[in-house]
């Protein structure tokens, strides 16, 4: 066990920062400088960032302060530092996906979420580390070295959005954005003791999110509180004509209804995700969270989602299949790395061989195989049908329950190097989070005490598509009932 690097955000929550900056009580610059001082102090040990944008952030904060002095209101995230997962395009600023194949690339446009955050007054403090192309559950697959868990630097932060989770847990920023394809927001949130929200597929625009598995990817926030996660979702949710999978429906205010409690809500504990493979201490925290929801007025029962256990196999056929197609674009022609060779075909092979890390190659190979002649029906075709079964089973469960509850991750944070030699053991980490991605529904991980090792445990609340309002209300109840932060190893 090593000394903890976990720290509360130095200037309070995003909501507190925005309120005081809008009121002129604090400058955006002093808020930023306090966070940069934290980065300066411990980032060398945490390695949450691929790139810290200190100069750009100072210029943005100063510009905000000028506007506020002139009587303008920059918006609901005024002066709030935000860390962005390095698979979100930022115009003119290197965006790597933690891959050598994109090293040095500067996108010619901003992701929609990046524009929305800036438009609400947030200040981008840096680009965070991830498993290469978001493929992994520990951030050890980064070409630029692993991120460490601030609660214990010998442990992984989870992944793939490990840098964004660690940045919030280390107090480098009160909020960050990640992406979640099979649990890549919720699992690192659980392991790092912060809140992580995967919105309904299509609620948040994916324009400018570098694609991994397009039918599963979704952008969402990390925060230290459920209220901050709701505040960020208020800013980033909504239809975007640049994303043809974006849901063309009006979006409610998630913050406005956050304090309405769970009286009358029916919440189901997913039995298939409470037994085999789930650590007893993690399961115990989930049962305590269920009891807290019941004490707050919810009805809690046992829910069955039989196909949930098939999710892992289906996911590890579907996601690599989509990835093998999406990553075909890295061919040394239009951007990023090129390894010279006499012919275009040889150049492409040389570039991809040198540019991709082992896990990305593994997934491309798996996906190419699952899609190849003779195996398509047995693997990819079957997996798409299992996806239907999972959607049916969730729909059946939601006839009896408004929300579902489960662990986020089967265990607390594991040690660096523990699972890197055995990819399947790493994949098994995603068993609780994957079903939500396959169904396209919403889910959130909320910190709830610790395991026997003193490390954070996250409980997962799941909702049907566009069920974020009730889900966030329940998340706020779980948060309020959680063992206090002081009891988490610090």
């Amino acid at each position, binding site marked *: 066990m090593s000394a903890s690097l976990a720290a509360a955000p130095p200037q309070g929550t995003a909501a507190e920062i925005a309120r005081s900056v809008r009121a002129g009580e604090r400058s955006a610059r002093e808020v930023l400088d306090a966070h940069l001082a934290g980065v300066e102090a411990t980032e060398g040990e945490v390695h949450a960032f691929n790139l810290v944008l200190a100069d750009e952030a100072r210029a943005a904060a100063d510009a905000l302060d000028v506007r506020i002095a002139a009587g303008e209101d920059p918006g609901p995230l005024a002066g709030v530092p935000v860390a962005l997962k390095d698979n979100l395009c930022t115009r003119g600023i290197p965006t790597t996906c933690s891959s050598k194949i994109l090293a040095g690339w500067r996108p010619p446009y901003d992701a929609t979420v990046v524009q929305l955050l800036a438009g609400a007054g947030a200040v981008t403090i840096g680009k965070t580390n991830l498993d290469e192309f978001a493929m992994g559950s520990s951030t050890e697959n980064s070409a630029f070295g692993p991120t460490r868990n601030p609660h214990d630097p010998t442990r992984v932060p989870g992944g793939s959005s490990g840098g964004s989770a660690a940045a919030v847990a280390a107090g480098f920023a009160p909020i960050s954005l990640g992406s979640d394809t099979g649990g890549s927001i919720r699992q690192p949130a659980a392991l790092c003791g912060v809140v992580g929200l995967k919105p309904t597929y299509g609620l948040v625009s994916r324009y400018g999110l570098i694609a991994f598995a397009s039918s599963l990817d979704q952008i969402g926030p990390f925060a230290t509180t459920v209220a901050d996660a709701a505040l960020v979702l208020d800013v980033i949710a909504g239809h975007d004509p640049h994303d043809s999978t974006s849901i063309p429906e009006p979006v409610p205010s998630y913050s406005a209804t956050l304090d309405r409690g769970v009286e009358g809500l029916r919440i189901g504990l997913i039995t298939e995700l409470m037994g085999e493979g789930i650590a007893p201490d993690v399961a115990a925290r989930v049962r305590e969270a269920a009891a807290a929801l019941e004490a707050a007025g919810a009805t809690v029962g046992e829910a069955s989602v039989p196909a949930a256990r098939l999710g892992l196999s289906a996911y590890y056929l579907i996601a690599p299949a989509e990835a093998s197609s999406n990553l075909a674009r890295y061919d040394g022609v239009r951007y990023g790395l090129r390894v010279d060779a006499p012919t275009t075909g040889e150049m492409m092979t040389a570039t991809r061989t040198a540019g*991709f890390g082992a896990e990305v190659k593994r997934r*491309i190979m798996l996906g*190419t195989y699952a899609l190849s002649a003779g195996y398509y029906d047995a693997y990819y075709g079957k997996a*798409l049908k299992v996806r239907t079964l999972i959607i049916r089973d969730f729909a059946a469960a939601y006839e009896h329950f408004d929300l579902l509850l489960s662990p986020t991750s089967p265990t607390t944070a594991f040690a660096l190097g523990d699972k890197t030699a055995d990819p*399947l053991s790493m994949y098994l980490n995603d068993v609780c989070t994957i079903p939500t991605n396959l169904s396209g529904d919403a889910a959130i991980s909320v910190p709830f005490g610790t395991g026997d090792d003193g490390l954070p445990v996250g409980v997962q609340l799941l909702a049907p598509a566009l069920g974020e309002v009730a889900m966030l209300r329940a998340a706020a109840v779980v948060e309020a009932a959680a063992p206090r932060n002081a009891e988490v190893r610090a």
Partner: protein
Amino acid sequence: MAAMSERITRDDVAHVATLAKLALSDAELDEFTEQLAAVLDHAADVEALDVADVAPTAHPYPLSNVLRADELGPTLDRDEVLAQAPAVADGRFSVPAILGEEP
């Protein structure tokens, strides 16, 4: 591990690598064959299902024929895009020889 080796062979892996434009060393071929077999073994639960009557789901949210209004709008700046390319010529992406032609 006998069952695993039946799942995917070293030759299968080498063939897939060619399709995916990846050059693998002998050691990588061995390692990937074993690792992919383990994942495919786990997928035996899916492979074994009788789902003949189940329709596939390719996409979670039922949207179809998404069209936008036919209106002019901003597009990416060509010079900014080409500035990121490994090689350009005459305002276009440039590549080495194709189909055996001289470059």
